[in-house]
């Protein structure tokens, strides 16, 4: 894997050999990919941060300040969420970034994220929504179509934003959209209790499964490198904790039980390649190669996403691959008879917006 960030992540000793020009690229791509904090953590954990030129260090330490403050903010938010929901008897599971902070996973180091992801039972989603609204979280203005899209088909409702603190909650009732044919009830996922607040989170195996499912059903990749390194770290954490069976076997078994092989095998393919686990990699490769489209189209497309320094600078074939992943993600999320009207509707909406006066004030997006 040739991406500069991945190379530095997998082999921190590389820091001793980088030129100032290389460091410019590390900073620029690292910033784009939200990887600056993670790279710095990696360098510090391997005691090579002193090889980072003084000129470059402020970019890493600045990011760190942000991450430290984020942790303080998230812990406060989780307490507030727990007081709001758990007190009303709504079991709440914390997911992704907020969960990594709550369990002090190695994944939390240097990781910046925008929203707090939580999951409640489908039957309780309306109650949870109302409870949060009483505590100051509100939806942005939404169209009727958006409402239906999210509530009927997706696995989450629209984001809730706190009126004063401006933090955002993504309230899920599942990890897969209702329209995904692999959809299953979220209570099949294994949870553990958090220590400091009465909230739940996924156990180590399902934490990997969730993150992998998310990444390998995505259609756009604003921070693919950050996401794949999430998986690498989660895999290593599981491997470190697993007592009787290897992480590899645990994940494969669980993937089969949940019917998520299509996504998890892909995830393992890339994670094992990065960790140089040749034997396991070959095993997964033979599983993945059973499907021609997956092996000859999807895998190379993902390979480009995880190895390019910048996916904006790909060639024609790369762009076709990216387009395939975009379409694949839509096909996964919903069957054709729902997808086609949805795409048509979105197209018409976008055309209408284009013919209106285009934003010409350089406003922040």
């Amino acid at each position: 894997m040739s991406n500069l960030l991945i190379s530095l992540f997998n082999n921190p000793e590389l820091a001793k050999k980088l030129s100032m020009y290389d460091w410019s690229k590390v900073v620029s791509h690292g910033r784009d990919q939200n990887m600056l904090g993670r790279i710095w953590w990696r360098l510090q954990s391997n005691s090579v941060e002193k090889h980072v030129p003084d000129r470059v260090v402020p970019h890493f330490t600045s990011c760190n300040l942000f991450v430290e403050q984020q942790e303080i903010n998230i812990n406060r938010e989780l307490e507030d969420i727990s007081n709001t929901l758990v007190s009303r008897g709504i079991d709440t599971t914390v997911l992704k970034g907020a969960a990594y902070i709550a369990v002090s996973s190695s994944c939390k180091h240097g990781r910046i994220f925008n929203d707090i992801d939580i999951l409640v039972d489908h039957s309780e989603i309306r109650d949870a929504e109302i409870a949060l609204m009483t505590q100051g979280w509100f939806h942005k203005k939404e169209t009727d179509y958006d409402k239906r899209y999210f509530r009927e088909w997706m696995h989450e409702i629209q984001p809730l934003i706190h009126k004063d603190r401006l933090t955002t909650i993504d309230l899920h009732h599942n990890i897969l959209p209702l329209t995904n044919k692999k959809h299953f009830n979220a209570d099949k996922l294994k949870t553990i209790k958090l220590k400091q607040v009465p909230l739940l989170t996924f156990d180590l195996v399902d934490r990997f499964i969730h993150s992998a499912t998310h990444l390998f059903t995505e259609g756009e990749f604003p921070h693919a490198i950050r996401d794949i390194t999430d998986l690498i770290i989660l895999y290593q954490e599981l491997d470190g904790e697993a007592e009787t069976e290897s992480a590899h076997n645990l994940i494969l078994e669980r993937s089969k039980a949940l019917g998520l092989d299509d996504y998890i095998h892909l995830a393992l393919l890339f994670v094992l390649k990065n960790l140089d686990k040749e034997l396991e990699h070959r095993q997964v490769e033979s599983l993945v190669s059973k499907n021609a489209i997956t092996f000859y189209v999807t895998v190379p497309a993902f390979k480009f996403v995880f190895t390019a320094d910048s996916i904006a600078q790909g060639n024609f074939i790369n762009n076709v691959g990216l387009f395939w992943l975009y379409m694949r993600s839509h096909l996964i999320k919903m069957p054709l008879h729902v997808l086609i009207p949805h795409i048509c509707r979105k197209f018409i909406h976008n055309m209408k917006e284009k013919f209106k006066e285009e934003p010409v004030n350089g406003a922040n997006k």
Partner: protein
Amino acid sequence: MKLKDLAKSKLESGKTLKFDVGPFSIAVKSDFPNVYEEIAKIYSEFEVLSDEHFVDFEITLRNSHSLIRKFFRKQCFFQLGDQEPFTPIPANQAFPMFEWGLNWCISSNAHQYLMIHAAVIEKNGVCVVLPAPPGSGKSTLTALLVFSGWRLLSDELTLIETSSGLIQPLARPINLKNQSISVIKQAFPNVAHSNIVKDTHKGDVCLFKAPDASVANIDRKSKATHIILPKFSKNEALSTDPMSQDSAFFELIANSFNYNILGLSGFNTLTEFIDGTSSFNLRYGDNKAALEWFEALTL
């Protein structure tokens, strides 16, 4: 070598300009020739960097990808690396967009500084910070003072080094709008400035080049001595109103970009910074009177 010494061939569309802006090394590339012209004029005294030099911010000001938009109602897109943080604006506003964009790059990333939305100037050891919301006349006042002999540290971004509490200069151009442009042009006809860009979301905009002496002293950090909140009100007599230290403290927080992100370090830096400063509300209606008042501070 300074930007003014660069060969004309290096100042063409598509070429990358690399130069230091105080503590930041930036690389700029554009599809628009006027961006190069304006940078060469306004940043003429800034040091050029070699190709291998480290870059803090890789900036691109590009044309639209759409074929029609490349020629009809041209737009300018601002990019930092691969990120596009803003919606596009008309292409004739590319140079102001560079300035606003660079402000954003610094204020969003440079957390080795506590950053305040304020102007800062210095003369004879008197270092004045002027926090001010839009419409207070801060930039016009800053321009008057700077072109009358005060050193410009910054017009928009006051950078307070968290390690030392000192202010780091940037000596970037002063951003003036609407009537202020003609006021300053008339008062100082020899000062270099960019073309006047009309009809931006702020009205007419013009960027006035910092004095050479301010750029030459870009590495001279200063300790703040005064915090002044100016308010221009036409024909009003000059009056000052001392502010309590804590009022000034919270005013700085209100105008800060990153006090909340810095947490304890922000608190420590700002409490250290405010110690020993004097603060005033300044109401004035006549520029000459204001200038005299400031001069009196330096005696």
